[in-house]
């Protein structure tokens, strides 16, 4: 498993921790915002804070407030996959 794969798994793990329905499996196309979102707005903020902590443990700062991060192909929060991709991209950019 590559480093990117294990980081993606970590992001998915953080999402799964916040799911109300524990029987759900986190997949790339799982919606995090919008009508089909599996997380309410409070859980989404908690996810951001958890990812901030995780990034800090990994030696970089996860920025969920920048224009670039928020507007890249609309929003990094649109799916679990897009969030993991953004997280990995920030990690690699700050290496």
């Amino acid at each position, binding site marked *: 498993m590559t480093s990117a794969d294990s980081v993606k798994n970590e992001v998915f793990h953080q999402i799964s921790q916040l799911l109300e329905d524990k029987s759900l499996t986190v997949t790339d196309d799982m919606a995090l915002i919008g009508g089909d979102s599996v997380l309410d707005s409070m859980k989404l903020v908690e996810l*951001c804070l958890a990812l901030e902590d995780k990034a800090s443990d990994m030696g970089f700062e996860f920025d969920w407030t920048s224009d670039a991060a928020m507007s890249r192909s609309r929003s990094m929060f649109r799916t679990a996959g897009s969030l993991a991709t953004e997280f990995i991209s920030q990690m690699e950019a700050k290496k």
Partner: protein
Amino acid sequence: MIIVTGASKGLGRAICERLIEKKVNVLGLARNVEDVPFATMSCDVSSYESVKAVAQKIKRDGAMVIGLVNAAGIASMNLAVTTPPSVAQNIINTNLLGTIYCCQLFAPLMLRNKLGSIINFSTIAVALGLKGESIYAASKAGVEGFTRSFAREMADFNVQVNCIAPGPIDTSLLKGITSEQIYKIVSQQIIPKQFKPDAVADLVELLIDSRANSLSGQVLHVGGA
């Protein structure tokens, strides 16, 4: 720690001094912080990047933020039709967007602890619809609308968001305004007198007190409107 914007003069400065007097750990923000005798950082609230740089520094330093007072603001007494677009833009950028940026970027520092109080600043001109203050009042009406909605967004995190709406308080912001003009405004308040910065500092003290944590999304008019 409580962050206070507009800390170098006027209401912001008075609020900082009061909080420091009450042994509160204060970080004052202002564009120009030279000769300000307490902990400060330079910050232009109308610039998202400037506010973000301060937020990142506070986060890296690990300071526990429990309050934000958005006192930075600029006033203008002009008819809308004689106000240059650059002035209108500056008023909206500082008063409305500045408040929004500070809330967006400093609130996450409070969410983690599920504790905090945010105080925004409006003006009695919104409630009274004062002539010659239409653009200023528009910027502050925006702050009131933002405060009500943002208060709901923050409620789940035990962060209260309120707004203080002063009348013409005796500060440098009123430089150039005649006493007749001030009288005309204060005579429309429920309590028809001009208040000192201390009255506003009293309200700030009240709102940051944990005993006021049942209050959120409210606009408190100094002098009444």
